[in-house]
């Protein structure tokens, strides 16, 4: 039953076939026995059980709060959780207990979800491997799957050194969902940090439109691009999470004012009215031939089903990585300025002066990656450099956004692209290149969606359709759908990008595609041992 979808298990709870406490206990037990994955930084056993007990009571009274009542979930450790440590996988916040809940966390709790714990990530969400956090790297559950073990030739006799990465930076959340320890997890997505690990871990990863979900309580990386990400086992589940999290938050001035209507996804049967765009520039250098072939096959799938499939061009794609780096590091330098050891977090013992205390605290608290980005960002923000780099990058960002506008205006409904360049790399290979190089390569397919939008005119880049601001949306919705297994037996996903605030259309198409490809379920020994036979799914036909 741990392998069921969120909707299925919710129905089981409602029908009394399983109790929230039982579900919670099983998840906690599975977390323990999959500890080697290092997906969780903090497991909140006591509070989770308490929440489960309260959920029990509500079900007994026949008054569940909704579809999420009693559902075990996990949250990336860069979301504030009151009373539970929030570390961002950094020495700077080790031991930091926030006094408040992020809005999205509060919403989950208000609907009765059971918060199992905080998941692992790259330090302060900077990275694409979930390997650069202070608590160590996250291991991809697929490393231990039957499918991987059968297909790949082990480099050594030890499982220890053959494991592959989850991707990042929301690797812990992706691994948690993938290994069935929770039914949904929150990640964050700035340049692909939800979709990338989703692709590598074979789960659905949704990045909603910027401004749809509140960022209050999400410790920011790039305020103008960050979005809370949703990781689930299937597209329908993602729609459920979206429905429970989206909507205006007065505490976050960048959320749109318009009311959000939660929706159920229709079962699309006729795709003939659909126009799918294939951006040719996404045939990026380094794209594996496997994924290229899969991408092509997917396009054919739509074509054969009657949809219009057209090649489109997003000519400024090749500038987007550089542009993203300038804007990202600049905001990082700014956002990290608050970590001085004075009000909270790590404080150095250095006492010579306030300045020396600041310097020592920040050197001790941040890893190389964070410090590197702060230095770069400050460089770009210097008065003499601001026009050359920051303003230039904003202008390029507008050009990138206009590329998408043009394409969507020409009649294309959804864009179909790869999510990653290849399947998950073995850890030993991955760490041979530095974080910056890796991010440059890995983010290439995902970060344009964070920067793009329709009519991105403002240099200030983020307006929303509300009274106080200009009516221009930004930050397109995008989703990773697990598609097939690679030759090595590892998941490969494809990405769909939609129009701003058109999540319903995006998810409807994604759901249709998911149904067509019938991505196989991961076969993990540990899970078999923990699971009862109620919901055993054996997906036979697969798309590869």
């Amino acid at each position: 039953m741990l392998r069921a979808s969120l909707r299925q298990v919710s129905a089981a709870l409602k029908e009394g076939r399983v109790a929230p406490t039982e579900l919670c206990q099983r998840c906690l037990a599975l977390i323990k026995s999959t500890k080697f994955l290092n997906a969780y930084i903090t497991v909140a056993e006591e509070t989770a059980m308490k929440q489960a007990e309260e959920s029990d009571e509500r079900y007994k009274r026949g008054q569940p709060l909704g579809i999420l009542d009693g559902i075990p979930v996990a949250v990336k450790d860069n979301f504030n959780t009151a009373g539970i440590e929030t570390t961002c996988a950094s020495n700077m916040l080790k031991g930091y207990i926030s006094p408040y809940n992020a809005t999205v966390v509060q919403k989950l709790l208000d609907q009765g979800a059971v918060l199992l714990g905080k998941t692992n990530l790259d330090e302060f969400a900077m990275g694409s491997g979930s390997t650069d956090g202070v608590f160590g790297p996250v291991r991809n559950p697929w490393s231990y799957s039957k499918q991987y073990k059968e297909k790949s030739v082990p480099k050594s006799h030890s499982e220890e050194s053959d494991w592959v990465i989850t991707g990042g930076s929301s690797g812990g959340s992706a691994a948690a969902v993938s290994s069935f320890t929770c039914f949904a997890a929150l990640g964050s997505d700035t340049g692909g940090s939800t979709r990338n690990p989703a692709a590598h871990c074979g789960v659905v990863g949704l990045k909603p439109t910027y401004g749809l979900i509140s960022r209050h309580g999400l410790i920011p990386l790039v305020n103008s691009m960050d979005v809370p990400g949703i990781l689930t086992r299937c597209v329908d589940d993602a729609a459920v999470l979206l429905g429970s999290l989206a909507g205006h938050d007065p505490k976050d001035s960048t959320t749109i004012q318009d009311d959000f209507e939660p929706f159920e996804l229709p079962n699309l049967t006729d795709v003939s009215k659909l126009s799918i765009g294939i951006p040719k520039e996404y045939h990026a250098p380094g794209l594996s031939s496997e994924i290229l072939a899969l991408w092509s096959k997917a396009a054919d799938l739509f074509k054969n089903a009657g949809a219009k499939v057209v090649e489109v061009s997003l000519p400024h794609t090749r500038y987007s990585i550089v542009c993203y780096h300038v804007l990202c590091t600049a905001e990082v330098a700014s956002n990290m300025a608050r970590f001085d050891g004075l009000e909270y977090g790590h404080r150095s013992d250095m006492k010579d002066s306030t300045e020396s205390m600041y310097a020592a605290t920040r050197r001790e608290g941040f890893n190389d990656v964070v410090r590197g980005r702060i230095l770069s960002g400050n460089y770009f923000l210097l008065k003499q450099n601001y026009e050359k780099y920051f303003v230039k990058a904003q202008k390029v960002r507008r050009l990138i956004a206009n590329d998408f506008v043009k394409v969507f205006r020409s009649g294309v409904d959804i864009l179909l692209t790869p999510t990653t360049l290849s399947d998950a790399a073995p850890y030993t290979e991955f760490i041979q290149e530095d974080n910056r190089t890796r991010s440059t390569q890995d983010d290439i397919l995902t970060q344009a969606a964070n920067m793009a939008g329709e009519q991105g005119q403002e240099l200030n880049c983020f307006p929303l359709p509300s009274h106080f601001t200009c009516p221009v949306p930004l930050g397109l919705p995008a989703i990773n759908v697990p598609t097939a297994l690679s030759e090595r037996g590892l998941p490969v996903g494809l990405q769909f990008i939609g129009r701003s605030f058109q999540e319903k259309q995006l998810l409807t198409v994604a759901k249709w595609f998911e149904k067509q490809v019938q991505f196989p379920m991961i076969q993990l020994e540990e899970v078999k041992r923990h699971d009862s036979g109620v919901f055993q799914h054996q997906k036979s036909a697969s798309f590869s």
Partner: protein
Amino acid sequence: LAPWAPVVGLEIHAQISSNSKLFSGSQVQFAAPPNSLVSFFDASLPGTLPVLNRRCVEAAVMTGLALNCSINKKSLFDRKHYFYADLPAGYQITQQRVPIAVNGCLSYSLCIDSKMSQMVTKTVRIKQIQLEQDSGKSLHDDTRSQTLVDLNRAGVGLMEVVMEPDVCCGEEAAAAVRELQLILQTLGSSQAVMAEGQLRVDANVSVHHPGEPYGVRTEVKNINSIRFLAKAIDYEIQRQIEELENGGTILNETRAFDSKLGCTVPMRDKEGKQDYRFMPEPNLPPLILYDTKSLPANMNHQQVINIDWIHERLPDLPSVKRKKLVEKYGILPEHSFTLLNEDGLAEFFESVVKRTQMKPKKVIGWILNDLLSYLKQHSLTVKESPVSSFLLGDLLNLLEKKEISSTAAKQVFAELWKGEGKTPLEIVKEQKLGLLQDQKELEQICQAVIDGQENE
């Protein structure tokens, strides 16, 4: 020696009078226990976001309108970065690129001579008004080698009023700031009490020879009153002139005013050139204001800020009030300045005028010469006056009806000042100050005096 032209550019920070801070809901209150008015956002807890306080925007719009500025219908927020113990986020949210109001002017008046008999009107151009956060306070405890940080003030809304360098001496600066203070207090947008830090003035001072380019300027800070503002500026002008005439140079530095010594000294804490690495504030959308023309049909003034709506409801500014006083009561313009300069004095004057038959032109003398000098002597405010407007009105009636002489009236006034609760009539009776009106009685007294003289 060629004449020197001093140039003074004032930067004024006025704390906005509001219940809560500019971007968070914590309270604004003077002298509260340390760190008792600090929200999560004020403490810069990670993940917190700014939410703009509508009242602060309205205060800035009112102030901009009162200073004849153009209100920018779209203005932006920026981050200004520097590290300091009283700045928790490591940056201040301000408006550097596009502030809320620009291109205004402030008119103020000066007395040409010391007798307050001739006033001249001057103007100073307002470059811009911007909304920004105040910082917390840090106290250096040298004995224990530590810095104590109080964040109560961190995040309180400020209006920074930047003036063009149109002022040329301490007296002008003082008059301009005084007028600004009165305007802010009339609007209610700031209580502008310098002693409580609600109004802070920095002066940029330089000197040059007319026709030549501007000289190097210094920034003078730490000025706690309008009186010290004039002193500090005049001292600094003099210091610069002397320095240059002796062949020295002026450093582009920040100097503090030492009120005890009456001079400016270099501030050791301020480093030379700071690069603030300005960046747009990504968590705040552009601030959009409307006027009646641009207001969308389905919106009312409660949902958005309508500049015209605010304009219609502005109270009479000091300059208008003064004009009205002069027109209504026939007093001199200089008188109207003094009336408005003392909190409550204009109301006191009008109250006395109502009570007495004496002409306002005569009443004003009693207000400005007698009442005011007594108040100043005893360091009292108008509200604290032991002589109420009613009592003074009654006294002036006795004088007007010629029941007492003017000398006697002054004696009665001195007696009233003791605040023993006696009415003017009672004092007159007690001290036998009543004027004799009886002709025959007067003749008898005079005769007696003459007779007395002859005997000697």
